[in-house]
């Protein structure tokens, strides 16, 4: 249904019911907004289960790497063998399944960050995800997630904050910990599902129930919701065609990123988007250039590459940041897999990112260089990356409120922007 038709018929229904159509002025708001939102967007992608950083961004210049991982190491690029690492800078290389990301590195859009993670020593998935999503390591009682605090304490522009129901969107059935908190955010499995599922005028009548009566919390949220549903309908999700020849994998993750691209392009005022991808807990038969981890990376890399391609020039206003709760042990275990470790790796992607360079100080993999003599040591606190991007990309100024107990520590920033 075209928006104008909806407004007209909705109004007719209400007028005939003897109700005031005063809400019409408000419903037009969504359309005006559509052209007005010019904010920046941060897209956070969480690899749940602890991705093996040493096989994502491979330190092929490090002898110890090959000694520690006799059966799962990614071969040196110099070997030019099938399945060798894709060289980045003569020392680091990408896992071959991350090949779709290499052109982004070459175009200086993509920055891998190594030896980054949480200062907490926990090796529990649950605790570590909690700490990363709240951005308060070793502090369990933090009630809200860092992305929600970011939205709650500030935004990129007043107009989009005030008006959009979509300033924070998680493409998931439930609100992830990062997005929980006092600021309104939306969690949805798909854009199509963000609608009233009823026929025969039921939706219009329910809308009328929320349009009448007092303007309290429940009514107010209902009215905003109906505007938000209309706004998405106007974006016409069924007809969406990715641009620039982008091809998303037909996977859950691919579909979620496609929908994030839709929302970015629909200018619905989205400042934060969130999606996650599981399957990284590779204790057994992790594989090397092919196998279990390679299959996850294939989905991961092709989806992200499609998103960047699809967004095209919009990448000027978008930063994509990937994260995982911790890395995995430097040494492979007895099952050709890896156990829980410490520091990990992230990817930052966007026109604003200082790409084409591997960021973060490399601590080395010799025994005495490892954390607790077993894991990649931490040289960058993940909050240094979060806060640099919150400040530099989204214009956040109240870092003390967003990162309690950490705050504004510019000296720790690594210059990823």
């Amino acid at each position, binding site marked *: 249904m075209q928006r104008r038709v909806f407004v007209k*018929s909705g109004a*007719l*229904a209400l007028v*005939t*019911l*003897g*109700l005031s159509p005063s809400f019409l002025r408000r419903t037009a708001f969504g359309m005006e907004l559509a052209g007005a939102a010019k904010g920046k967007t941060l897209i956070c992608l969480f690899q749940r289960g602890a991705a093996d950083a040493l096989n994502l961004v491979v330190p092929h210049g490090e002898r110890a790497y090959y000694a520690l991982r006799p059966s799962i190491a990614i071969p040196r690029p110099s070997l030019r063998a099938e399945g060798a690492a894709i060289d980045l800078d003569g020392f680091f290389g990408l896992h071959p399944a991350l090949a779709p990301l290499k052109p982004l590195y070459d175009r200086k859009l993509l920055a891998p960050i190594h030896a980054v993670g949480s200062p907490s020593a926990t090796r*529990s*998935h*649950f605790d570590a995800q*909690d700490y990363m999503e709240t951005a308060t390591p070793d502090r*369990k*009682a*933090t*009630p809200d997630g860092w992305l929600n605090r970011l939205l709650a304490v500030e935004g990129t522009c007043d107009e989009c904050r005030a008006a959009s*129901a979509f300033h924070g969107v998680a493409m998931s*059935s*439930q*609100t992830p*910990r990062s997005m929980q908190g*006092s600021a*309104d*955010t*939306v*969690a*949805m499995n798909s854009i199509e599902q*963000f*609608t*009233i*599922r*009823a*026929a*025969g*005028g*039921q939706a*219009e*009548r*329910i809308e*009328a*129930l*929320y349009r*009448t*009566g007092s303007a*309290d*919390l*429940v*009514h107010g*949220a*209902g009215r*905003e*919701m109906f505007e*938000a*549903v209309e706004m998405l309908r106007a974006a016409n999700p069924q007809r969406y065609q990715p641009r620039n020849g982008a091809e998303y994998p037909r996977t859950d993750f691919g579909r979620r990123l496609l929908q994030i691209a839709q929302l970015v392009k629909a200018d619905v005022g989205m400042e934060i988007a969130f999606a996650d991808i599981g399957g990284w807990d590779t204790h*057994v*038969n992790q594989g090397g250039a092919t196998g279990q981890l390679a299959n996850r990376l294939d989905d991961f890399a092709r989806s992200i590459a499609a998103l960047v391609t699809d967004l095209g020039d919009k990448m000027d206003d978008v930063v994509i940041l990937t994260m995982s709760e911790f890395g995995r042990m430097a040494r492979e275990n*007895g*099952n*050709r897999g890896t156990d829980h470790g410490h520091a990990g790796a992230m990817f930052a992607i966007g026109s604003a990112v200082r790409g084409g360079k591997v960021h973060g100080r490399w601590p080395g993999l010799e025994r005495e260089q490892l954390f607790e003599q077993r894991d990649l040591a931490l040289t960058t606190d993940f909050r240094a990356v979060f806060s640099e991007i919150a400040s530099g990309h989204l214009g956040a100024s109240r870092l003390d409120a967003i990162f309690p107990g950490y705050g504004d520590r510019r000296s720790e920033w690594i210059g990823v922007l």
Partner: protein
Amino acid sequence: MRILSAVVVALVSAVPLHGQEALREQPADQQILHALNRLAFGPRPSDGQKVRAMGLDQWIERQLDPSRIPDEAADRALARYATFGQPENYLVRQYAAAQRERRQIRADSGAALSREDSIAFRQRGEQLRAVVTDLQSAKVARAVASERQLQEVMTDFWFNHFNVFIRKGGPQPFYMRSYEEGIRERAFGSFRDLLGFVAKSPAMLFYLDNARSMADSGRPTLARIRPMARRMRQGLNENYGRELLELHTLGVDGGYTQQDVIEVARALTGWTIRPPQEGGGFIFRPIMHDAAPKTVLGHSLPGGRGIEDGEDVLDIVARHPSTARYIATKLARRFVSDTPSTALVDRAAATFTRTDGDIREVLRTIIQSPEFFAASAYRSKVKSPFEVVVSAARALGAEPDPTPRTAGAVALLGQPLYAHQAPNGYPETGDAWINTGSILNRINFGLAAAAGRLPGLSATNAPIGAGLSSAPREQQVDAVVSALLGGSVSPDTRAILLSGDHPMIASGAGLQGLAQIVGLALGSPEFQRR
């Protein structure tokens, strides 16, 4: 002192509720509905009449003493869950055996699992899932069916107050049922008793890591540490100590310091769990206990003692004035208002202190207060997703759903049961539950339930539809308003509910029309409140 307070409790309990009516602003019928919405999970079709016949005050008294209420309906509903028939220590041992087996298989074969092994793994996985889904389904079924409604409301309240997370990993799912059952048994009892139960429960010990907290190296312990144990030493873990003060007793501004957190954690070292292969369960391990002297909130605990340290800490925090205030505030927020008056909190806190933390008496103070039945209190609380789903099932007269589907609906509305990750529990105020996305989900839930798309909640088979399928729209609207919306709605709302014959709106005849009205009512702003 103890005897004296027991006498006071007895005297106060003996005072009947009669004579309170004068203080109540709400009209009599509204009081009944209000009580059913606050002290129960909403009315079932005949509940209003039953309470009226019994007398509201009599009904409240009975709800405050659940042991007097027979509850075959709940027993029948629970008998359907297979894992409820298996004792916790059996399930925990099974879990330990499965873990051992898994390690063994990995060590043996390294690479590929045999067909038999992978089938066995799958079956274990299914059993674990059954433990979780049985718990979740049973919580909904019990809230729908139980006659001991206030006991279920209070169990929900205390579980949330002492929240644990079912997906913490390890044996956590197996510790949940006895945890909730222990809370239910103590829901109206002494706060100190409840606190002690929680402190010794494997569910909490595992969730907040006290099970692995031990004296820091260099501290004296009660037993000599074997070399083996020395290697595994990890030191003090403050998690539980902190939440005990911040969330369970004094509250975040309750007047304690970081040093108090450390001292409390030290006092509780050695409070741990038996290994899963021994079936779990609480144990005090002297070898882990920090035996040096401590000072907790100004109280000195001498050195060289064992489990008494922790017991003393629980005594100290349970009797702290901040705890009385904190618990009184939370109860008043749950039962009366998101922003309870200082006067009400003061009175409830005074009862807490006077009765040495008698929960039933604190509750009585709150229910008997003028604030509870104030006109402004009516429908002033926003329902949590759990309350939305359970109250819908009750209003529709639905049978308790033996499948996990209805619990799944609660999760989709944003409150996966036993699965709030952080120790603060689900929010108790409306602003946390209501936003653009949640309103949409609530409306869609109501529409799905009304259209019969949620088999556990089918409205078309429910008493509400009986005899009304070919009744005039007006009569159908009256029946739905009576069952779902407390009997009265604004003229605007009524006009919209009646508007089925409007040309803009496909006219619904018969049952389909009735389902339409039910869908509108469940999705309405009024139904989101209690």
